[in-house]
């Protein structure tokens, strides 16, 4: 057998005991939806139904918000901050202890490679709880002198399907540290790790109702946004839904933070370390099958190195291994859902129809499940849909530029502004470009670097508010 064939190296699923059905977690109790309705959650790599999950609706949201309000008034508001911190540390430790189980379930439910859920999603989730636990009794230092930190009350958090556990952690950890209680609505296609997190929270013995998890679909989320006793909405998801949320809460005194879509530019100058830039480009667009709001989905490359970069990229994507997400050698997992798969295919077809040149990694696609090989387009003009719309898949649009100012202009020519990358060997040039990019995060000579201490968030239609770091506390304090 040739070495490069890499015999299957499957992660054992034994540590993950997935139940046949899951209820809602409200007021510290597991309870079916009031209607009794459920929906299936599907393994996108096999199209197999993994479990039935309760479909919460308005009545369930109301019960959960009431539980959160009661918990806030009865336990959480008056608790000494150092005591709150102990609970949050306990959650962090339990995530670490159950990391294998969480990684396996994340991969089965969402299709992402086990390598990523094991080395990125789960450790980052734990790190967020550890980080914010430390802040709970130091909030006075998070604000300008003279202001007294106070919780907002009940937070409604709605999280997406691309990093289900991690996004839940991004919301729950700072919300709890700041003294709020929470109702979490996980994404419809990936509810399982949020439910495991609810188990962890239950075992950590948090007072009932401090964290509630109500699974469901868009209507469930809409009910949470509309609920009159929710003080704050924290949403990560599409710009389209973000706009609906803004309209819904207009005229109320709810506060809101939105982390929405993006169409980030990765700018590669001729003097960049090209091999490393290609690594960053690959990570930027193919990490998590491109289901990343800050994905570097537009590659702006200086014209005189365009061919060299494209050639390296073509060779590099041929080494990416697509297949069973539970295989430890898999680089590219399954597309999260049938709907997303169809959406990506439609956008790829539009790129071809509009005249861009499509390049896709060679290799077989499994028969079952939803898959798209790593893909990029050359010959993309800025007016094409693939250059303007967020694809949220493993599809890169490559364009060229001649000067730094042209690169900045093209990079900023989007309604979004979440992230960007700059690749150059010249420090002064990185700074010049980074200062002029309208993006919440600019990575220089790297991409997709995350740390709980570093704030993350967008400009313009990518949303507002910051998550992570000291800045992330402001979103949960009055």
């Amino acid at each position, binding site marked *: *057998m040739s070495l*490069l064939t*890499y015999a299957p*190296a499957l992660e054992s699923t034994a540590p993950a005991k997935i139940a046949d059905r899951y209820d809602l977690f409200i007021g510290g109790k597991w309870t079916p939806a009031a209607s009794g309705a459920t929906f299936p959650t599907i393994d996108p790599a096999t199209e197999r139904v993994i479990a039935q999950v309760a479909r919460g609706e308005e009545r369930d949201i109301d019960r959960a918000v009431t539980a959160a309000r009661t918990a806030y008034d009865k336990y959480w508001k008056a608790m000494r901050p150092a005591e709150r911190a102990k609970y949050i540390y306990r959650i962090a430790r339990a995530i670490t202890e159950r990391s294998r189980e969480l990684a396996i379930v994340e991969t089965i439910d969402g299709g992402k490679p086990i390598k990523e859920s094991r080395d990125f999603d789960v450790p980052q989730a734990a790190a967020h709880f550890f980080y914010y636990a430390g802040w709970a009794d130091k909030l006075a230092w998070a604000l300008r002198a003279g202001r007294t930190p106070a919780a907002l009350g009940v937070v409604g958090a709605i999280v997406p399907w691309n990093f289900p556990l991690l996004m839940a952690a991004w919301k729950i950890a700072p919300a709890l540290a700041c003294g709020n209680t929470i109702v979490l609505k996980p994404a419809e296609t990936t509810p399982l790790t949020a439910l495991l997190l609810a188990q962890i929270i239950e075992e950590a013995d948090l007072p009932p109702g401090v964290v509630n998890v109500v699974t469901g679909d868009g209507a469930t989320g809409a009910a949470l946004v509309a609920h009159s006793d929710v003080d704050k909405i924290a949403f990560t998801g599409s710009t389209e839904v973000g706009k609906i949320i803004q309209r819904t809460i207009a005229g109320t005194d709810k506060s809101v933070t939105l982390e929405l879509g993006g169409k980030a530019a990765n700018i590669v100058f001729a003097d960049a370390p090209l*091999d*490393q830039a290609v*690594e960053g480009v690959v990570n930027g667009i193919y990490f998590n099958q491109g289901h990343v709001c800050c994905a570097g989905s537009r590659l702006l490359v200086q014209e005189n190195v365009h061919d060299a970069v494209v050639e390296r990229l073509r060779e590099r994507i041929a080494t990416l291994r697509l297949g069973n997400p539970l295989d*430890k*050698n898999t680089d590219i997992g399954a597309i999260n859902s049938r709907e997303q798969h169809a959406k990506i295919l439609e956008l790829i077809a539009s790129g071809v129809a509009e005249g861009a040149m499509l390049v896709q990694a060679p290799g077989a696609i499994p028969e079952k499940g939803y898959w798209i090989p790593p893909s990029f387009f050359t010959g993309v003009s800025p007016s094409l849909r693939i250059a303007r719309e967020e694809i949220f898949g493993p599809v890169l649009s490559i364009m060229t530029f001649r000067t730094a100012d042209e690169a900045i202009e093209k990079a900023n020519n989007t309604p979004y502004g979440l992230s960007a990358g700059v690749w150059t060997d010249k420090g002064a040039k990185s700074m010049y470009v980074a200062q002029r990019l309208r993006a919440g995060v600019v990575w220089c000579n790297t991409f997709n670097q995350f740390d709980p201490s570093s704030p993350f968030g967008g400009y313009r239609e990518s949303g507002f508010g910051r998550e992570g770091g000291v800045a992330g506390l402001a979103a949960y304090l009055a």
Partner: protein
Amino acid sequence: MNLRSPSTDAVMLESRAASFAKRSIKTASKRAAIDLAIRCIDLTTLEGRDTPGRVRTLCAKAIAPGEDAPSVAAVCVYPNLVEVAKAALHGTTIAVASVATAFPSGLSSLAVRLADTRAALDAGADEIDMVIDRGAFLTGDEARVAHEIAAVKSACGAIHLKVILETGELGSYDAIRRASDLALENGADFIKTSTGKIGTSATLPTALVMCEAIRDFERRTGERRGLKIAGGVRTTKSAIAYLVLVAETLGEAWLDPALFRIGASALLDDLLMQRQSGRTGRYASVDYFPKD
């Protein structure tokens, strides 16, 4: 040298390098990798106390490492011991490699270094492992480094020349890339990471930079040159990480002793132990493996 060397950035280089060690090589792939690693070994002894007896023992192990394990690629010794190794390996396909050019520092006159090389060649060496003058390189005298490599290659003729960059002394990935390009442009058949005589030997990021230089050289000239990693590779796991690195960066064609070598001694014992445990499912005591 007119060629401009591309720059290298540490962050993504190291991140990519780390990814090779994360490949999970199991069952049939692992068995294939272990045998391949054995076939790529330059079994090495480079100690001041080396004796003919020691070299003959090593050669016996090189020929038949154990059970039905394949032979290694070469035995690597000091010039004075080339004749002994040559005799011990007579009739086999195993090459005798000799370090030369005032190994390990290279800080002698070119005349002395060439004489050292010729002595090794006259004794019958099939391959020469030379060192570059790091002092000259670090003072910016690239012309001298280039000239010396070319001169040694000229002395070697058709004999394979491996050029040791001693990457642990060069100070940056950019310098490693530059030294790799200098060696390749001036006749190196292989570029080699280290002498094994200083604290920092081969690392995955270093090997990756060198592979990128070899890959770009092939793009430029159509010629394939080899990589030898040396020093610090003691376990099967780390040897496999290098095989993965080479395969994913240069392609499967490089997974061959003609283009990839590992300079090692203790590594072979671990490979043999892993090879046996892969077959039996159990680890035997180290005392079941003969010490060389």
